[in-house]
Structures are given as structure tokens and as C-alpha cells.
């Protein structure tokens, strides 16, 4: 990648006998929203901590804006913003005080900070509540405040760990919109999430991580397209006992049972065979529902690991 801001090459980190990050490699381009997608415990937060320099690596190379975060932590930290999983703000202080606190610790030049604070609070729709204790904010408002704080010292890269964890659907979209808008300002985002909808909607590219290893890396669309199949979900009464036998010759590539009366089939082209499927189920079985879908990132994860993201 020509204009990469982050390069991770075979990075490894162990905690005792546990390999949290296992020879992970990826690159992130300038102005990109890059996702780290994986279930809890996959190694996403550890990866982010390797990028910040909070954690030392046991092997491999990491470069952030041309600097090694382990050896040149000061240079890296000056140019990155970090939003941790927990909303770590001073709840008894107001939004302004929280941002001023950050400015004293992070901003290289304090001239114009007051204007920047106002601009960011307005941008995040928090200006009207700037003097209220943060304790009175909703989850989404707190998250927006943390994002404003991470942007205050004008970092080139923002590492965002679980951006919308614990916030409602409406607030999620507002936060996504803010991230996309900052991307237009040439900011680079690395977003860790276990939410496939978030990864799908937000990320330009993503790496799917499982047990510390990268199992797939591409744009969300390409990852799904690479599966080359559709998902047919059937609900029948009674349930189909031997689907492989029943649907022989229809190109069924994988079968699983999400529920007792549900059947999930991966097929090459659902539209061309669904009529035949219905016909084979015959009159002795009531068809409750037939659902045809394009694959999701969960399907991609399932395809590579044999289990769902939420399992």
C-alpha cells in the first residue's frame, strides 16, 4: 500500500501461555476506516494496544506513521487519538472541563484550544449541554464526548475500540456519521468491533480476527462476494430430518440448524433453485417461511471458522 499510515507485520503478543495476537499482519491507508472484526477475546483490543504502544509485542513489526510505538511511544502518542471500550470520562465534571483536561495533557499548542473545543462540541451536538455534568448524559452523548476528546489534539489516526458498545440504535448512526465525516478530513480510523452490522456499514476494509489470527482481509463487500453463495433459511413443520438427501443435486454447499425448526442452507444461486426446493418438501410438510439472503459478515466468519461471531 503506497500511502499506508499503519503497518503491522506478523505481530505477536502472548500473555503467559495464551497467544492473544498471533502473527497478525495488515496495513491501513491514510483516510481509511479500517475494521478489526472478531468475537470477544479474539485479540482486537490487544492489537489496538500494540498500536498505541501500551503493550509490548513478542514478535513481528508495527509501524504507526513511520514510528515504532514500542520504541518511539512519545512520537506515536502525540499523533494518535484513542477511544477505549469504556467511556472513561470524569462523570462529575462537565464536557468543557473534560476537554480542557485532555488539552492540558495532549495538545502541543494551547493557542486556539478554546475555539477547537467549541467547534468539536458543536460538531458532536453537545454544545448546549457543555456545562452539565457528564453524569447526566446519555450513553450516546458520552460516546460522542469521548470521540470529541480523541479529536481535540488533531491526531492523524484515531483508534476506536468498540465505538458503539452499549449505545442505542439512533446514537449508533450518529456516531458512524461522525466517523465518516472525520474520514473526509483525511483522518484514519482503526475501529475494533464484534458487531458485524457496524463493520459492514462503517468500514472501508476490515480484517477478521479469530484467536489472534487474521482469517480474512478485504472490503466487506468483497469478503461477502468471495463466499460466492446465498443463504436460504427455511422454517417448516415438521422439521426436515435429512436435508442433504432431500436437496441432492441442487448445489447445496453447507447446511446448519440455527433453531429446532430452522434450516440454513448455503447455495450458489438461490433464485434458480428455491422453487425446486419447495416442490421437494412436498404436501406433507407445512412451510412456515422461506428467507433468501445475501451473505453477511457473520456468514463469512462462519465460513472460515465453523462458528458464528456471537458464539
Amino acid at each position: 500500500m503506497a500511502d499506508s499510515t499503519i503497518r503491522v507485520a506478523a505481530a505477536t503478543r502472548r500473555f503467559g501461555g495464551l497467544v492473544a495476537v498471533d502473527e497478525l499482519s495488515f496495513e491501513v491507508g491514510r483516510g481509511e476506516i479500517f475494521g478489526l472484526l472478531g468475537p470477544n477475546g479474539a485479540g482486537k483490543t490487544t492489537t489496538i494496544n500494540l498500536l498505541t504502544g501500551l503493550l509490548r509485542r513478542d514478535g513481528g513489526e508495527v509501524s504507526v506513521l513511520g514510528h515504532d510505538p514500542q520504541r518511539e511511544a512519545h512520537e506515536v502518542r502525540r499523533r494518535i487519538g484513542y477511544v477505549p471500550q469504556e467511556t472513561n470520562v470524569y462523570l462529575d465534571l462537565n464536557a468543557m472541563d473534560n476537554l480542557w483536561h485532555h488539552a492540558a495533557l495532549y495538545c502541543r499548542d494551547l493557542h486556539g484550544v478554546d475555539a477547537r473545543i467549541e467547534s468539536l462540541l458543536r460538531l458532536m451536538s453537545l454544545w448546549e449541554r457543555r456545562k452539565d455534568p457528564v453524569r447526566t448524559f446519555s450513553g450516546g452523548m458520552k460516546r460522542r464526548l469521548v470521540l470529541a476528546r480523541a479529536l481535540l489534539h488533531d491526531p492523524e489516526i484515531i483508534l476506536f475500540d468498540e465505538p458503539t458498545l452499549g449505545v442505542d440504535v439512533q446514537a449508533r448512526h450518529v456516531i458512524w456519521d461522525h466517523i465518516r465525516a472525520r474520514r473526509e478530513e483525511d483522518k484514519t480510523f482503526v475501529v475494533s468491533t464484534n458487531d458485524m452490522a457496524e463493520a459492514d456499514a462503517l468500514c472501508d476494509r476490515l480484517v477478521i480476527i479469530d484467536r489472534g489470527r487474521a482469517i480474512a482481509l478485504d472490503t466487506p463487500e468483497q469478503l461477502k462476494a468471495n463466499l460466492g453463495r446465498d443463504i436460504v433459511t427455511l422454517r417448516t413443520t415438521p422439521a426436515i430430518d435429512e436435508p442433504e438427501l432431500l436437496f441432492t443435486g441442487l448445489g447445496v454447499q453447507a447446511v446448519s440448524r440455527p433453531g429446532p425448526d430452522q434450516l440454513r442452507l448455503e447455495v450458489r444461486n438461490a433464485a434458480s433453485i428455491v422453487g425446486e426446493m419447495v416442490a421437494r418438501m412436498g404436501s406433507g410438510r407445512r412451510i412456515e417461511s422461506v428467507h433468501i439472503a445475501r451473505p453477511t459478515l457473520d456468514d463469512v466468519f462462519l465460513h472460515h471458522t465453523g462458528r458464528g461471531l456471537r458464539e
Partner: protein
Amino acid sequence: MRRFLLLLRNEFALFRTAIPAHAVAALQPAVLYLLMTTILVHPTFDMNMARPETVLGAELAAALEQVGSPVGEPYVRLAMVDWDGGTVDRQVIRVEALDGGSLARPVAVQHFGLIDSNLVKNFRNRLTTAALRLWDAELGPRSVTVEQHPWLPHDVPYNVYFGMAVLPMATFLAAAIIGAMLTAQEFEFRTVVEYRLAPATLGLILGGRLVRLALTALLSAGVVWLAVGLVTGVWPRDPWLVVLILLPVAVVAGCVGMTAALLLRRTIPAFLVGLVGAFAGWIVGGAFGLPSSFGATFERVSRLTPFAHAIELLFPRYFGDRSSASAVTIGSPVISALVLLLMAAGMVALTAMVYQRRVRRQE
């Protein structure tokens, strides 16, 4: 400088996250002082004597009146009462006939009620000294003269000494418990991540917090200073010197509180370390009297605390310089000042090391 002032402003804004600790720091030492002054220091005890009916009894009463502290306010005051031999309130002296005989050989009998041994001792000393005076009067040239040479030309009222001794305690308590609370909260609120990643230097971060703690601690001591002055009318000489004496105590205490919080990472245990440290150190360090008045071993232990040195440096500010040799000595002020500075510098170095390991180190 602007960054440091901004950091300092933010440190003071964090007051809102630890209001109870600030309330305890500001009020508790002054309340303790006022209570102790009322309960332990204020009373002047009446030494009751049954109204004498003989000349010898009257002479004993007159002698009792003359015995007392060479300087200062009386601690025990003679009071004539009509006593019928009933219940005794603390103590009463009555001149009685020996074995029920005639009053030609009278005996001064002390009847005691329910009192503590210290007061028994004081009442008995007063009586025996008065009897000695009567006896001396008849011995002529063989009489024994007892001279009293007080160390200071004036009394050391206990409410002034105690108030003076509360000053370093108030300073220590405020810096230690607030330092502990603010630092432990960073772990509980996870705001410590802000400090872990901050490009700001360790010196700036620690300096901001320590200066804030020191200023708060001095304000807390100021409340006690005011209380002592208003109650006793005694104000220290060279107030700025008092501030300079208390400053290293505040730094040591702030470091104790912060280090406890960095190691424990929880608010209540860290708060308790500050609280217990303040009171235990203060009691050992001269809360109730100059360390040297309690023996060499106690004094040696006392001098391991900043309190002993601070109290000895404060003493002349309240009571004037030593005027004569005394059994109760005060350490060299230069050494005490040096020890306080070394303690402060050592604690700052230790806190910086612990902070680096617990917050800033790459794991």
C-alpha cells in the same frame, strides 16, 4: 507555564469528584481541635477543702492557696466548701482529729471520690507541698527551699500546644486522603488511560497534582490556624515560615496518598491508608507533647515521621525561643528542616518511580 496552570486548574476542578474527602480534610482537624480543647484542656479543677474551724486549718488553707504553677493559669483551684461527711465530689480535704481525739494534733485527711489517678496525684502533690511549707516555717535555718525555674517565662497552655500540633496533622490528612482519592479514582473511572497515553511529561503530571494537593493541604491547615487563634488568642510569629514548614509535610503526605492509590488502585483502601497514616504518624510524632518528653526510644521513633520535625520547628513560632536549658529538648532546627526536605524529595522520587511502573510503563 500555561500548560501547568491549565493542569492545575483541572486538578482543582476534580474537587467535584471527591467532595466528601475535601469536607473531611477541611473540617475534621478543626473539629477535633475544638472538641479536644473543650473536653481535655478547658477544665480548671476545684480542690475542695472543708471550711477550717481551727487556726492550723486556716494556715493549711493559706499554704494551699500559695502552691501552684510558677507561670500561667492555675490547673487546680482551692475551693472552700461546707461538707457534712457525705458523698465526695472528686476530692475534699478536711482537718480532722487523729483517731477521733482532740484537734490539738490535727490531721489533714483527703477524701477521694471517683477520679483518675492523674488528678489524685495532682491533688496529693498540692496538699503535701502545702504541708511542707507549714513544716518549713518551723524549721527556721534548716528549712528546705524549693526553687522553680520554668523553661519558658510563660506557660505552655495545652490548647495552644495541641492546636499547633494539629497544624501538620491537618496538612498531612488533607494531602494524603485527597491524593489517595483522586489517584485511585483514576483507576476506578478508567481515566488513568488518559494519563497512560499522554505525551505530557511525568514531571508535569505529578507536579500538577502535588502542587494542587499542597495548596489544598495548606488551606486545611489554615482552618486550624484560624480556630487556634480565635480560641486562644495566640497567633504564630512569621506566618510565612509556618507555611514553609508545612509545605514539605504536604508534599510527603500527597506522595503517601498517591503511592497508596497507585499500589492499591481502589478508593476506600487508599483513603484508609491516608487516614490511618495521618493519625498514627501524628500521635507518634508529637501530638500530645514534644517527642523528647516521652523518652529516648519514643523520640527516635518520632523522628522517623515528618510530624516530629514539623512540630519542633513550629514550637518556637508559637512559644518563642528557648530561654534556658531544660530536660525537654528540641532538635536542631537546621537538621529538622533538612530532614523534612529530604523526606519530601525522597517521597517524590518514590512516587515518580511507582507512577512510572503502574501507569506509564509498557506492559
